[in-house]
Structure formats: structure tokens, C-alpha cells
């Protein structure tokens, strides 16, 4: 005989859970409350080196309205059932759609997919959580609004709400997504609806144009958190520039990262290069063009000699700096001169524009991302080693060459200890850099899976010991990262949680907050 449910929430009896499910069905209808193994299986796959059983949901709820969500939180409070919200659930490499803890009910908001407003003049959008970038992209094209999106690598299938709430980034001048967020509607655990910023004022028409409102700014506490369920989200869009000039600058030695960063920082801070520049290592770009198994077999990380062969065979630099200029042709011409002069000084840089590199698949997908077009090509990474294991290691670095080199060397050293490759890139903010490393491993190989877990754990330990904090992490390591930020911040997070969600029904475990 089999159980009625494939998992139960922690501390909830089968009888109580059954009663909660009946109540959910009254609100949503039978077809929108998923409990069978076949229906829930698509929510379970994670790429983390822990058993998927640790993250198996007990049910999934497909809500379509704010009123339904208010009723759902009431039921959750009554039966002490925790919910894990996803918008489109495309947090690949960070835990995907699976909940942080076994037995949590997934509140899947994909059917809340209305584009509520796109203002051409003020260049903003107000959307529901299930809206995808593709949907918004199509809408903007169809209505000829002349606006650009900034999107992360999962582009077409992901959405702006989930990505921004997890503080994801894109590659256009609007690439630091939360910087461009403006106004949220949030269902709180007690069922009340909060509109942040100017949205709290009746009849205000400035909700999506002025972020700060009056009093403490609240939007931030609803990102990477579990203090409420965001049901509407405003953000700014970039007016389509009259001209766009993507380019790549290649360097041949790993130590050149120092020169790259020292050259880029002033250009970035002054706005000459306005977008989120990417400095991608050869092994981050190689999967678009090559297979690991063509160059190396057997255990251990890929040797430098093989990396240099890949570079030669596929016209890659060890570092590949992708950036773009935006504006009128006159502006671009002026800025291009500044860029080429800055990078040309040492004689180490090889600068390629669309004219020379348009046919290069790595350049093509990077150029697409920098102009807010749809592409999923970056996920070729998952074929590099094969086997389906992936975790994003994401420490933050100062935009300073010496720091970047230190982080790269330390990451590479720890990965090599566990036989894993350095597939890394730096995404350049104004003064910071997101150091993004895809820890790729074969999840069908138990030894490698164990090594990947230990490796990731050591990366977090060693980086935090040196004062390098991680800005985002998968659900298996959220508690560990929360610890690295110290007890005072954890207590503040916990105090807020107690005040806003005393029964702990909203996504317990998110960012280590319970």
C-alpha cells in the first residue's frame, strides 16, 4: 500500500495535512491542487549534490488571484502548513522549483501571468509573478513600445519577478535588476496586502516611478526573504537606444585579469561602458563550442595545457570581456575611442567587434543578452562535464584587479583539490563584481557528487574566512551562508520573521530564515 501523499510537511500529521488539502481544494478547485507523484515530479529535480528526497514537496498549489493567496495563507496558518513560493521556478543551479525543505507545499504562481501595465513614456512595467521575459518581450514587440528588457541567462523561460526577488542580474545597462525595481504588492502572512513605496497611498499614480515612498524603505526585505508573497511587481525598462555596439576583448593569461579590471573600473564608474560587463574565463565559454571529453578524460580537473588548446582551437581568450556601448552613433563613436585607447595601452588586448565576431557562437549569445534578446545558450555549460550536477558559487568581489586575481586563484585551487574545473566569470557592477562559478559535476557518479558537496562547503568556508561574502546560494547551503554573515544579522532576520509571520508558514529556510 502507498501513502496518499509523497511527503508531509515537518510536524504536520497526515490527518491535518489532509484537512489542509481539502481546504485548498475548496479555494482553488481540485485541478489546481497537485498531490500525485506524477504531477509533483516536475517540481523535484534539483542539480544539487544532495538527495532530491530532501527537497520533495508534499503538494503544489496553482493560484490565479490575490484573493486565493489570502485564503491560502489563512489555511496555512490554521494547519501550520509551510508554503514555498515560485513564480516561474527557473532558479536553475540554485535549487530550481523545489522547496528548501522536504514536505513544504509549493505555491506555484505561474498562472498569475498578467502584464498589468507597460508605460512607453515613463518606461516601466507592472506585472504579476508568472509573467515570463518571453511574454513581456513579445508584448513590447507587438505594441512597438521601443523598450528593452534586461534578463538573466534563462531568459525566455524565466521571469522578472522571481529573478529580481532573488537579486539576479542581467547584462544590459539595467543589469543590476533590483536597482531598477519600483513598487511591489505583497500578501503578508496575516492576509493583509501591502503595497510598498507610493503604492500605499490611495489614488497615487507614482507607484512605479518613485521608489522610496515615506518612512523606511521596505522593498528590500521582500527580496531573498520569506516575509511575504509578492503578487505584483513594478520595474523600469530601458528605452531602446538608437545604436548598440557589442564587443569582446580577449586576453591570453589568467594574470591579465588584474589589468582588465583596473582598465574597466573607471570606464564603468564613469558610465563610458554602461552595461554589466562580463569577464568570462575560457572554460565558461568553451561549452558553447567544444566538449570536455574531446580534450581530457579520466579523473581530476582539466589541466591548463588542455585549456590553452581549447583556446587555440576555438578562438577564445583565457579571459573574454564582453561589453557594449549604447546611445546615438555619435556617443558610441566617442566612447569607442576611449575604450580602445584604454584597452590598447598594454598591447595585450585583442579587441573584436560584431564585424569580426558575429559568426562566433559565444559572441552571438553574449551580444543577444547585452541587448535583452532571448537565448538559452549559456546552459551549454550543463553538457561540459555531463551528469546533471550544477551549483552556482557566487561570492562578491571588489572591482579591483588584485582582489579578482585572489578570488580566481583560490576558487581554482579548491576546485582542483576535488577534481573539478573552474568555469567562472565576473559580472562587473559599478564598484563590485559578482564572481559567478558554475560548480559542474556528474550527479550519476556518487564519488564526484560527494566531492562536489565537500568542495562547495569548503569554498564557502574559505571565502567567508577571508571576508568574501556570497550574495546568493542554492537551497542546500542557505543556512551555511546565513551563518557567515554573523549572529546579529541572523537575529534581525529572525525577529522580522517572528513579527511578520509568527507561525512560520512562508518559505521557512529561505536564506536561512525561520
Amino acid at each position: 500500500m502507498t501513502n496518499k501523499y509523497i511527503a508531509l510537511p515537518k510536524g504536520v500529521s497526515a490527518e491535518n495535512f489532509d484537512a489542509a488539502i481539502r481546504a485548498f481544494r475548496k479555494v482553488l478547485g481540485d485541478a489546481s491542487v497537485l498531490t500525485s507523484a506524477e504531477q509533483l515530479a516536475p517540481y523535484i529535480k534539483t542539480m544539487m549534490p544532495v538527495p532530491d528526497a530532501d527537497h520533495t514537496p508534499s503538494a503544489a498549489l496553482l493560484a490565479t488571484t490575490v484573493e486565493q493567496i489570502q485564503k491560502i495563507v489563512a489555511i496555512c496558518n490554521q494547519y501550520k502548513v509551510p508554503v514555498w513560493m515560485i513564480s516561474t521556478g527557473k532558479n536553475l543551479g540554485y535549487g530550481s522549483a523545489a522547496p528548501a525543505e522536504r514536505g513544504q507545499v509549493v505555491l506555484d504562481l505561474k498562472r498569475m501571468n498578467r502584464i498589468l501595465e507597460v508605460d512607453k513614456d515613463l518606461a516601466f512595467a507592472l506585472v504579476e509573478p508568472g509573467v515570463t521575459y518571453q511574454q513581456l518581450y513579445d508584448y513590447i514587440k507587438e505594441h512597438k513600445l521601443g523598450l528593452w528588457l534586461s534578463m538573466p541567462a534563462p531568459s525566455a523561460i524565466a521571469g522578472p519577478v522571481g529573478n529580481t526577488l532573488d537579486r539576479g542580474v542581467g547584462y544590459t545597462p539595467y543589469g543590476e535588476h533590483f536597482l531598477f525595481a519600483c513598487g511591489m504588492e505583497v500578501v503578508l502572512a496575516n492576509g493583509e496586502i501591502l503595497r510598498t513605496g507610493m503604492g500605499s497611498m490611495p489614488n497615487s499614480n507614482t507607484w512605479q516611478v518613485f521608489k522610496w515612498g515615506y518612512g523606511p524603505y521596505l522593498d528590500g526585505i521582500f527580496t531573498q526573504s520569506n516575509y511575504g508573497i509578492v503578487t505584483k511587481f513594478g520595474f523600469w525598462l530601458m528605452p531602446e537606444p538608437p545604436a548598440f555596439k557589442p564587443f569582446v576583448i580577449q586576453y591570453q593569461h589568467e594574470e591579465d585579469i588584474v589589468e582588465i579590471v583596473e582598465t574597466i573600473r573607471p570606464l564603468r564608474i564613469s558610465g563610458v561602458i554602461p552595461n554589466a560587463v562580463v569577464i568570462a574565463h575560457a572554460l565558461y565559454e568553451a561549452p558553447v563550442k567544444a566538449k570536455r571529453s574531446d580534450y581530457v578524460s579520466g579523473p581530476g580537473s582539466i589541466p591548463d595545457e588542455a585549456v590553452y588548446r581549447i583556446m587555440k582551437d576555438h578562438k577564445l581568450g583565457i579571459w573574454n570581456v564582453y561589453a557594449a556601448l549604447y546611445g546615438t552613433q555619435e556617443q558610441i563613436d566617442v566612447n569607442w575611442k576611449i575604450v580602445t585607447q584604454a584597452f590598447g595601452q598594454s598591447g595585450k588586448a585583442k579587441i573584436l567587434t560584431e564585424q569580426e565576431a558575429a559568426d562566433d557562437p559565444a559572441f552571438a549569445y553574449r551580444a543577444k543578452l547585452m541587448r535583452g534578446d532571448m537565448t538559452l545558450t549559456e546552459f551549454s555549460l550543463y553538457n561540459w562535464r555531463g551528469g546533471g550536477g550544477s551549483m552556482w558559487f557566487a561570492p562578491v568581489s571588489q572591482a579591483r584587479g588584485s582582489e579578482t586575481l585572489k578570488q580566481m586563484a583560490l576558487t581554482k585551487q579548491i576546485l582542483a583539490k576535488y577534481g573539478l574545473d573552474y568555469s567562472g566569470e565576473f559580472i562587473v557592477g559599478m564598484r563590485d563584481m559578482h564572481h559567478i562559478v558554475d560548480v559542474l559535476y556528474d550527479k550519476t557518479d556518487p564519488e564526484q557528487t560527494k566531492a562536489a558537496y565537500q568542495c562547495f562547503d569548503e569554498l564557502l568556508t574559505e571565502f567567508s574566512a577571508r571576508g568574501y561574502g556570497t550574495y546568493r546560494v542554492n537551497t542546500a547551503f542557505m543556512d551555511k551562508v546565513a551563518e557567515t554573515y554573523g549572529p546579529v544579522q541572523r537575529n534581525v532576520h529572525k525577529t522580522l520573521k517572528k513579527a511578520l509571520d509568527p507561525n512560520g508558514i512562508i518559505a521557512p529556510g529561505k536564506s536561512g530564515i525561520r
Partner: protein
Amino acid sequence: MDETRRNLIKGMLTSGTLLAFGIPTVSQAMSISQTLSDSTRNCQLLLGNTPIDEAFARGAQAACTSYINHHQSVLPAFKLEDELLTNPLRIVDLLTQSRNMRWIAVMDHASAAIFTELVRNLEGRLLSLGSHSSSGDDTSFPNRHIWTTAASMYSAGGLLASLLFENRQDFFIVENFLEQMMGESAIKSPLLAGFATYQRVAQPATRLHCAGVSPQEASRIIGWKASENWKSISFHADQSSAYQDKTASDAAIKHPQFDNWIEATGYAVVASALGMGINQQPCASCAFVHRSDQRNPDHRGLPGKHFVSFVIDV
């Protein structure tokens, strides 16, 4: 649907590449699939444009041939001409237009990451998700299969184990079932020839089938705790008349032999999707571990193959 997408789908479905595998074109496929018996959903194969497509499709077609002998039908298939990463809308349209269909899909890990997301978006039912690898690395077991399976009735592990066993290659298969068992379940069908079967003392719903290897060593190989205690179990024919009937039916199907493990995998996945699985014991997790008694087992052709199989209902 806009014209571009319509044209893309048209291009995909009328592709001559389908014929390379003996796969019917769309017009043929649709008419053939309509002849499937009412008791089985219409099944189709989706090949994700990977180097293993051909071998997997051969195994799949062999499974269909076995099925024909019992049910008069064949397996139509679609081969994506382009990678799923470059235009996921194609597959969205394809799946959207194929309601009431059981799809058996095979693709690389990059495409699989996206495909899983699309299946969830479309509210498809995922019956099994298998990750299949081989490598000649000294440190890893040469042939590895890990499945997440909704329920034991969709299990392909037993059938694949029986096929690979004939090859005398080292392999392991792990199946994790989402449907949760209540209490201890008895073994309800004959054990696989050549394998000794054990259950975990602390968790009897976990089963281990070992050939050429002790349960402790098998546990270590598949990443389970090597220190677990295992109890040997055996089958008693009088335990379940329902399963005896199924067993009798299974016995009537003569499964072919394969030299190529990818073909064998294609066969096992499709045969199980068509209801011809064997040794589908209700349990929480089960594993098959086989270590060849050959001193130098032939693992040629194994390095560097990784792919994912799906069985979904839409």
C-alpha cells in the same frame, strides 16, 4: 500562433531526418499512433538531437517491435533538428499540440534542464526521469543509471538490469520512487536471475539487488551508506495472485539482447513506458549493482556518454 513559429514546427515535423532512423514522418506517425490500443496512451518518441539518438531509437523501436507482437502497433517519433536551447518555443508548441500523449524523450543535460521546466509549465505528468552515464574513468563505475520514478509501475530499472546483465559489463542502476510505501512490502514477483536481493534492515522499503558484489560494497558504489545492515530476501510464489498474473504476462515477452548499453536503455525505457517492465517491485528505493567476474571487462565505447530520458504524459 505566429507564422514564424508555425513554419518552424512545420519544418521540424516534415524533416527527412526522421527517416534516417526508420521513423515515420508526421503524417505517417499520426495515422499510426491512432491505431494504438485504447488501454495504452498514444506514445511517441522525442529525440533531442544528441549523438546517442540513433542507438536509443534503435532500442526504442525494438521495444515497439516486442509490443507489436502483443498489441499491433509501432512507435512514431520526432527528431528535433535544432537544439532545445536555441528555440524552446518549438517544443512548447509540439507538446501543447499533443494532448493525451505519452512522450518518451531523450536529450543531453543542457536540454533536459530546460525540458523539465517546460514539462512543469505545461502541467505535464512526469512518470520517470533517468540520468544515464558512462565513463572509463578509473574512479567511477563505468555505467550508471539514476532514475526518479513516480511509482513502481513505471520502473524501467529491473528490465534494464536484466538486459545489461547479459552484456557482462559493470553497471549500477538506482531508482528512487516518489510514491511512498506504507509499512513493509513483500517481494511480489520473481527476483532477477543472477542477482541476490536484500532489504535495508532499518528501512525495509529500500532494496538492493547485487551480482558479483556484496551489499556493503554495492552500497558504497552507489553512494549509499556502506555501514547499513542488509537482510537477504527471497520470493515466495504464493504472495500475490495479482502479481503472478503480471509475471505470467511478462514471461510471455521475449526481450532481445543488446551489445550496446544505449540501445538497451532505449529498449528498457520504451518497453516500460508501454507497460512491459519487469521486476516492478513496490518500494521506496531500489538499486541493481553488477560487477562482472571478468578480470578485464570490456568497457570500450563507454567514455563520455551522458544523457537524460523522460517519460511524460501531456
